[in-house]
């Protein structure tokens, strides 16, 4: 499989605080890859480095091309970033949120795409006029995912989608992510605190420890290795 995203020796900092020291990872086209690790290991920062919302150094290439500039440039290059904590525009309606997802696109098939996205989330059709802020937590997370799909991303970045959601909703969310991956070949890089969920949904995983890659391997193997589970994943 072709390499879609490659990070080589990426470091990132928030002011004086160095959050990433040396992260290298690869995501191939059509893969679901998980990034795991404890709080403060640099999971979220890794995603932010990719989408350009944190100042970073090192090589980040999408499809062999170095990514430069802020999040606007990343969005244009085909990266859809669903940030932690329900990335929706709360004062705007469901439909408006979806339309904004297609902001960087110049073609005219946005309406058709709203219907395509609604096939995965049927409730969005009837509730298109509802304000996003009045949706439940799970629905907002689904909407954030739907909005990301509207950009027809080459790479989807998911940051802690399970945060604050009931286990049933989390399973439903990842079921949809898997379906998107299988049906449409969507490439996904997902950051998760809940290692069990993420390992079940992904093919490969990286484990971060204080801003470095500590461990990497096939998700199934990491899941079945008890010592890995105990020392790195805490379950």
């Amino acid at each position, binding site marked *: 499989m072709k390499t879609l995203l490659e990070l080589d020796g990426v470091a990132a900092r928030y002011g004086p605080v160095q959050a990433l020291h040396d992260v290298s990872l690869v995501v191939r086209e059509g893969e679901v890859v998980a990034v795991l690790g404890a709080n403060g290991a640099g999971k979220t920062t890794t995603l932010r480095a990719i989408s350009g919302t944190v100042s970073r150094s090192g090589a980040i290439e999408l499809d062999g091309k170095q990514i430069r500039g802020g999040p606007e440039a990343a*969005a244009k290059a085909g990266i859809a970033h669903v*940030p932690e904590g329900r990335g929706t*525009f709360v004062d*705007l309606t469901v439909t*408006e949120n979806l339309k*904004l997802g297609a902001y960087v696109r110049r073609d005219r098939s946005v309406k058709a795409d709203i219907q395509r996205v609604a096939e995965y989330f049927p409730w969005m059709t009837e509730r298109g006029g509802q304000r996003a802020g009045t949706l439940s937590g799970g629905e907002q997370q689904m909407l954030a995912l739907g909005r990301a799909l509207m*950009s027809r991303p080459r790479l989807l970045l998911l940051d802690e989608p399970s945060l604050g959601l009931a286990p049933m909703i989390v399973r439903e969310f990842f079921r949809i992510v898997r379906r998107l991956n299988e049906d449409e070949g969507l490439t996904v890089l997902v950051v998760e605190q809940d290692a069990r969920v993420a390992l079940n949904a992904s093919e490969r995983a990286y484990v971060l420890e204080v801003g470095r890659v500590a461990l990497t391997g096939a998700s199934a193997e990491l899941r079945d290795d008890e010592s890995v589970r105990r020392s790195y994943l805490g379950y």
Partner: protein
Amino acid sequence: MLAASFTDFMQQVVSGLASGGVYALLALALVIIHRSTGVINFAQGEMATLSTYIAWALVAHHAWGYWPAFVATLAISFVGGVGIHRVVIRPVERGSVLRIVIVTIGLLVAINGFVVWQWSGEPQQLQSPFGTDVYNVGGVVVAAHDIGTIVVALGIVALLWGLFQFTKVGLALRAVAVNPEEARLVGVRVSWMLALGWGLAALLGAVAGMLTAPTVGLDPNMMAAVLIYAFASAILGGIDSPIGAVVGGLLIGVLLNMLSFLSQYDMFGWFTEELRLPMALLVILVVLLVRPQGIFGRPEVKRV
């Protein structure tokens, strides 16, 4: 007696709606900037005065017709507003809100000084494009300029609403107001959207100024009181609510005219025109104390 007082009342309501339309435009300008930048633009009134002088100069010195001058002034003001954001506001935007506020106050003084330097402080006349006709509608005397003002103000508001509601750029402008970080992630160039907001605010101010000048006369401090009324309107309607700005403007216009209505009666003789400014400040104070979010605002919820 009662019938007479009713026509007097209606008289004041109609002319109150006309001045209220102007307040609404300026209040809307304040709201647009507050929603996206989080500050009150204290230079909003002076920006409007400058625009009005430009329109006046085109008409008086360059023999332009009123409407061509009107349209040209809108274009110049829009570009000027964008320019002000790019050159003066953007460099201080990342700091504390206080810095931007101080810059807008500096802008107020600078523009005022520029206007006096360029055109002197002498009052000037800008003719009303609607003429000086008055109509008698069932005893209520209505000036053509008042009707024109209401129509133009509401027309501009409707156009702007359409822009915000039905266009891609309008959606992006609203998205930036709700959540700028998120807007960048979907690819919106936030900084340009803020500049666009300043451009629209300058354009609204220009309309307000051009509609005000024919009745009060054009001078460098023409918009000072109007800006206070616009503050009152925006705060009454809700400082982040465009619809609130419009409703608030019309309400304030009518409310202040009630002073003129009441002053005709011996019993309320002490209600005079001079109380307009104190009354506006009273409205600001009462709203901030009783319902800080205004009529249409949602109470602020702090996210933890």
